[in-house]
């Protein structure tokens, strides 16, 4: 009994860790999606963030500088994406696919040039744990909730903040209006282009930081293609979480749990087909999209460019 409880606790601790990059990118995606932007390029943005984060941490010998670099670089990727899809009105989906291909090329190339091909990756500073006094001593949930990597707390904090922004402030109202009825929002004096630019840049910064958590939090080095579909899982989490920050938190924890178990199964060298666990987020998202479980309400102007009538 003791053992099983221990195992569950360890899995849940790992779950918060594996859920964090999904949650960060997912929250970023909410900002974009709510403004009517479907950014499939989030996978590539995370990969670029993962590389920028580890390289930044390595150069400055400080993990938080790495996170900062990842955020800035993610924001730049977002700005380029925004320029292409908002100003030039290029197709959002195809542009996203291009960013993913570009990201694989860029990060692999830079990694080989900056860190060399055959050498093992250099150790870089990684994110430390913060143990909250007293709280972390609560049995079971203490170690789970109050003895985590510092980035985990930051990601969790973003959930109520984002909820507050979307449902209690005029900024949130504007973003939602732009995503649902861009024309009406424009008539009401909201600058549709400006809102879409800023949500894309901010959302991509979060995706970049989410990627950096993979290379500086879960691991402490960059490996090629290390995001491995987590950007798409974040997209799935946003849809399954019904574009709501709390929903996305729940979905991230659910999907992260599968990830945590899968890592454990692979580490044990067990024959349990972990592949089915990896499929769960995608299957759930499809059933959610089909309206088979719950009902999803995507922003109405998703993936449509806004063309202002003169």
């Amino acid at each position, binding site marked *: 009994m003791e053992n099983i409880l221990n195992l569950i606790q360890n899995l849940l601790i790992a779950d918060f860790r594996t859920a964090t990059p999904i949650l960060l990118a997912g929250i970023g995606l909410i900002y974009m999606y709510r403004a009517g932007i479907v950014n499939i390029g989030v996978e590539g943005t995370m990969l670029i963030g993962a590389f920028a984060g580890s390289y930044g941490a390595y150069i400055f010998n400080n993990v938080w500088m790495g996170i900062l670099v990842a955020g800035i670089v993610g924001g730049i990727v977002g700005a380029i994406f925004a320029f292409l899809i908002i100003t*030039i009105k290029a197709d959002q989906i195809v542009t996203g696919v291009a960013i993913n291909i*570009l990201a694989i090329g*860029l990060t*692999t190339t830079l990694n080989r040039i900056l860190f060399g091909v055959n050498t093992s990756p250099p150790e870089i500073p990684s994110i430390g744990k913060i143990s909250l006094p007293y709280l972390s001593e609560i049995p079971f949930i203490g170690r789970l909730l109050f003895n985590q990597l510092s980035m985990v707390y930051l990601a969790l904090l973003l959930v109520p903040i984002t909820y507050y922004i979307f449902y209690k402030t005029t900024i949130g109202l504007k973003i939602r209006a732009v995503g649902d009825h861009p024309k009406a929002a424009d008539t009401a004096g909201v600058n549709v282009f400006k809102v879409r630019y800023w949500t894309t840049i901010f959302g991509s910064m979060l995706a970049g930081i989410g990627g950096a958590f993979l290379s500086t939090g879960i691991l402490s080095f960059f490996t090629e293609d290390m995001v491995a579909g987590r950007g*798409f899982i974040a*997209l799935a989490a946003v849809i399954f979480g019904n574009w709501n920050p709390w929903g996305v938190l729940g979905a991230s924890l659910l999907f992260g749990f599968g990830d945590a178990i899968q890592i454990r199964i692979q580490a044990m060298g067990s024959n349990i087909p972990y592949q089915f666990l990896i499929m769960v987020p995608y299957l759930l998202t499809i059933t959610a999209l089909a309206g088979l479980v719950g009902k999803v309400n995507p922003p109405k102007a998703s*993936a449509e460019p806004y063309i202002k009538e003169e």
Partner: protein
Amino acid sequence: MPADTKIDIKKIAIPIFSVLVSFILGGIIIKMMGLSPSTAFKALMQGGIGNINALGETFVKATPLVFTALSYAFAYKAGLINIGAEGQLYMGGFLATLVGTNFQGLPMYIHLPLAIIAAFIGGGLWGLVVAWLKVRFNANEIITTVMLNYIAMNWISYLVTGPMKAPPGNYPQSKDILSTALLPNILPGSRLHLGLLLAVLMLIFYYIFFKKTKTGYETRIVGRNRKAADYAGMKSKKLSLLIMFIAGGVAGLAGASEILGIQGRMIEGFSPGYGFDGIAVALLGLNSSFGIGLSAIFFGFLRSGGNMMQMLAQVPVSVISIITGLVIIFVIAGQAISNNRIAGLQKIIDLFKRSEPNNGKHS
């Protein structure tokens, strides 16, 4: 009719211009690495068209790209965005392997076609799921195809580490494909196989389907305006199901060509992203059969030359992905600009553009 047959210089200029700019940027990146762009591009040429083997390799890589690009193009004509060719490719490869490793004793002229048809059905059913979710539940095909890609990849991973793993089971791969189901070599001294012919046949099929058949014509109408098509009595739902079955099926052929023509067995992750590169191929080829053929050869050339570039000029082969990504971005941006006429940017384009009358076309 006249609008379709007229060759639009501007339309063709965008892909050519995009390729040129991407290569120049690629050269700058190579230069920034402290390597020589001219050595790199020379190696690229050598690896892409330098000898029979290199030339064969270019077409070997172009073959699956024709299939995945056609998959995107088929769906696109029906107004559907198919990001799922990668998953459809895997499911096609799965059924091709299932048929190809069984039925010992069948003659080749039955076994090989059977394996190819199985691949088409495998990919087609995976595409059909997308269309069914779309017409029955109104589930966005962009998202469902992305999700189904990962389900298919993990399904293959499960099969080759589990039920389909070849004994004694040291490697995550299936049994060898029986010789009667292998696509035979068609160019001695290279790896070029009969799959190329299949790709050419599919290009012709694509051309005939959309130019000469009633169903193809209706599909294009549905793609342009679903509501109007329904109003005119066309069954847009039925057509969506049919087209996604074909689109998936064609992508499934890419799986067959890889497994029956190159690998000889199913391994984990046997596609190096052909499904996604197919989108680039279709875009660059302007969704026309001739254009897709040409741009598949171009991307095949990049992939086969890229390896030589890495060997001879120490330029990482991943530079090819950078060039691919850039090509897509420039093509899609160029098309959007020419469709939407943006004030500031339009002035720049006007400088390059021949004086063509503006017919106010929005496609």
